[in-house]
């Protein structure tokens, strides 16, 4: 069988490990080295604790789907991502960090708008949003920061429409979300940003309760809050989660994906030439796999002893699941470091796996399909307006990406 890796406690690699500056799209070398080891291993995180690190595709999927593994951030041993996320975990707690049956009860309250048919109905609206922003982009000065001009507004406008949040408030929610997703944010700043966002959603829910409209927050206010299935505080936290996750992740996929495509012009040509939705859909799956923007590991804690691959994870041990190495596992994706829009990448774990797999994935897929099939065709000469070495990457973010992407055409 496989052997346990037993590093001396002061000999452990710190996690997350830094990516190499010259290959910003690839997982850190030290992390990839763990994948070739035959078993689970330990790492040290910011608070000195030493959770298990899981890097292989089969192990990541198995453990994410294992009911003996908990997402409950209030459990002792939970390997928090940063001091800020630990400090804010109680006030931010929503179904994403609860276990079944509570998780499932609350998640099902908000699955309806993400059904495939609803996404198909929303597609023309997303297309219009993308086209309008590109019109503005082409009419404006260049170079321009694609993050501010396009990547962030597209998913922000869409999630605002879906939830019923006024887009005019985007400065407020984008500013606070930025604080939430930075690992280096001070705990008091994270708590303040969480409180500000929750208060904002709470006030919005009160308004929707009095004057409901055709949107998800009105649904939650009139169905779940009014009937006592959720407190308004719980509903507000849920709103924060949907609003933050709904714009920050997709925005990074758009900007980072564009950079990756500009670095791989033959693959960019595949998207420009694609006249078939299947080709575009496959390209989106490959970019999700290749970029794997959730790069600080999905965090869990063991509820009971779990023996896996010859190693026993003890009850109360933290577990860090590295999706970016799972998605570069050569056992599942041959030649994994190659961006190949023609490959079948559907088994990626970019949205996670198990019962917590991303709620918004049908929305994210549709948005990315619209964006990737529109932007490069309408701006065929799109080019990076700076050296890649000058770009600042989100190394300290829970989500990987670029802070700015200066482009011209």
């Amino acid at each position, binding site marked *: 069988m496989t052997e346990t890796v037993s590093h001396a406690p002061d000999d452990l690699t710190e996690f997350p490990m830094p990516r190499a500056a010259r290959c910003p799209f690839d997982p850190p070398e030290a992390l990839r080295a763990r994948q070739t080891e035959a078993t689970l291993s330990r790492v040290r995180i910011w608070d000195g604790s030493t959770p298990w690190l899981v890097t292989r595709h089969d192990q990541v999927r198995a453990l*994410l*789907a294992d009911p003996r593994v908990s997402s409950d951030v209030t459990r002792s041993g939970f390997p928090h991502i940063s001091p800020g996320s630990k400090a804010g975990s109680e006030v931010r707690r929503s179904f994403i960090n609860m276990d079944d049956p509570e998780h*499932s009860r609350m*998640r*099902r309250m908000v*699955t*309806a708008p*993400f*059904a*495939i*048919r609803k*996404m198909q109905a929303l597609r023309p609206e997303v297309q219009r949003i993308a086209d309008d922003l590109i019109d503005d982009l082409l009419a404006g000065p260049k170079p321009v920061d694609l993050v501010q001009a396009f990547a962030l507004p597209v998913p922000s406008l869409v999630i605002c429409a879906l939830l019923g949040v006024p887009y005019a408030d985007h400065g407020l929610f984008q500013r606070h979300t930025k604080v939430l997703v930075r690992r280096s944010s001070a705990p008091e700043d994270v708590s303040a940003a969480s409180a500000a966002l929750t208060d904002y959603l709470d006030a919005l829910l009160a308004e929707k309760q009095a004057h409901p409209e055709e949107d998800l927050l009105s649904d939650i206010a009139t169905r779940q809050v009014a009937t006592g299935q959720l407190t308004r505080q719980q509903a507000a936290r849920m709103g924060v989660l949907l609003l933050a996750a709904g714009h920050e992740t997709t925005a990074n996929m758009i900007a980072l994906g564009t950079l990756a495509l500009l670095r791989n012009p033959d693959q960019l040509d595949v998207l420009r030439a694609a006249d078939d939705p299947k080709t575009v*859909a496959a390209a989106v799956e490959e970019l999700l796999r290749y970029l794997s923007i959730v790069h600080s590991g999905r965090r869990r804690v063991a509820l009971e002893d779990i023996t896996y691959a010859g190693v026993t994870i003890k009850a109360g041990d933290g577990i860090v699941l590295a999706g970016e190495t799972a998605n570069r596992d050569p056992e599942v994706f041959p030649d994994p470091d190659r961006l190949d829009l023609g490959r079948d990448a*559907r*088994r990626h774990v970019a*949205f*996670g*796996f*198990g*019962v*917590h*797999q*991303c*709620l918004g*994935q*049908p929305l994210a*897929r549709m948005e990315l399909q619209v964006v990737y099939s529109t932007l490069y065709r309408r701006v065929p000469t799109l080019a990076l307006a700076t050296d890649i070495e000058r770009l600042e990457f989100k190394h300290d973010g829970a989500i990987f990406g670029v802070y700015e992407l200066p482009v011209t055409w």
Partner: protein
Amino acid sequence: MHVEVDQPKCVASGQCVLLAPDVFDQDDDGIVELLDADPSPEHHDDVRESAAVCPAAAIRLAPR
């Protein structure tokens, strides 16, 4: 091939509907609905892939 779905397990990822729309659908809440428990052979690959990517193991396959 015989297909069964476990609706209480479903987390509405929608991937089965994208892969095999003749076999799977969703109810108003996004929860899986089985359209064809005994799909014809041309759908078998897509149904197998649907079961493989289902994050909640809500799709079960049995030979027939």
